[in-house]
């Protein structure tokens, strides 16, 4: 039924990881609900906002790496993960 979706392992892992992050964040939210706060970002954000900003900027970081360099994308991934963690902690 889903053969038309042409699934590949890497894309499946990608979406599984995103779904996993969302599930973990949901559980975290139920265990300890968060409130809006102001970090180094110019706006007040909740944990979910910061996750969204982190994921969106990760996409742009990957595209930037692809556009301007031939470095392997694992570097872009590492940069994105570090950036997302910084954002979640201090953003």
């Amino acid at each position, binding site marked *: 039924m889903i053969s038309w*979706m042409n*699934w590949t392992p890497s*894309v499946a892992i*990608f979406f599984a990881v995103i779904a996993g992050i969302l599930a973990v964040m949901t559980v975290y939210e139920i265990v300890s609900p968060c409130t809006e706060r102001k970090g180094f970002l110019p706006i007040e954000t909740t944990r979910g906002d910061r996750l*969204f900003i982190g994921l*969106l900027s990760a996409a742009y970081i990957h595209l930037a790496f692809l556009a301007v360099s031939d470095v392997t994308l694992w570097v872009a991934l590492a940069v994105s993960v570090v950036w997302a963690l910084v954002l979640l902690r201090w953003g």
Partner: protein
Amino acid sequence: MDKIPNNRAWWLVLPVFLLVAFSALIPLMTVVNYSVQDIFGPGQAYFVGTEWFKEVLTDERLQDSLLRQFLFSSAVLLIQIPLGIGVALMMPKSGIKGSLCLILVAIPLLIPWNVVGTIWQIFARGDIGLFGWGINQLGVDYNYTGSTVDAWLTVLLMDVWHWTPLVALLCYSGLRAIPEAFYQAAEIDRASKWAVFRYIQLPRLKSVLIIAVLLRFMDSFMIYTEPFVLTGGGPGSSTTFLSQTLTTMAIGQFDLGRAAAFSLIYFLIVLLISWLFFTAITHADKEQ
């Protein structure tokens, strides 16, 4: 005793979730899958990794149409927003004149996109169209099928004609929501018309204007039918905007992998801009 939170109402969201899954998530996942493969037909797909993305990011044809798209959307906003505010300010406040104005202003909004394209295609023709013929009679050499500048002007004019009414109607509703007491206070202070606009009307229009800018940006960023019918993207590729480039690639050339990679980048641009607007709207609400 602590109140036990009852979250069973979330089940009511399930139908919407399913609907969104079918209309957005599954197609999106499919596009992501397509973007990392070279697809020749059913069952004939080869994994190519990020090759399409790399190619798309360095493809001049796509960069050109992206640039054109940003130029077009900026021009649309720069013209339609001030013009819409102006029209709204000039419309009668109430009575039969007000209602008549509202109806007249709203008419272009009711016309389907492809019909708008056809109307302007004929209207702007030099031989039988009133607009094109009139301009030619004034001694100006105008031909939207041959000249890039004329084609751009015609597409812009068509969009301004079609969508400025939306901005005007939104601003009109925003203006009507300002209590009369504000104007009375301004009159007592002998405020000039400009001061009334600058310090009473414009700040109160802020949230309406953000919505207007968002709607106009999104619509103009996705524009397809009108220029496709009017100019077909020409002359050359001077009015070929993003969605038309994408459609030609995906359906015309059946280049699914490349088109998927490009539509994901398109999606990311739209997502970023929508998020910026969304944040601006929610913050404007909080300030109020």
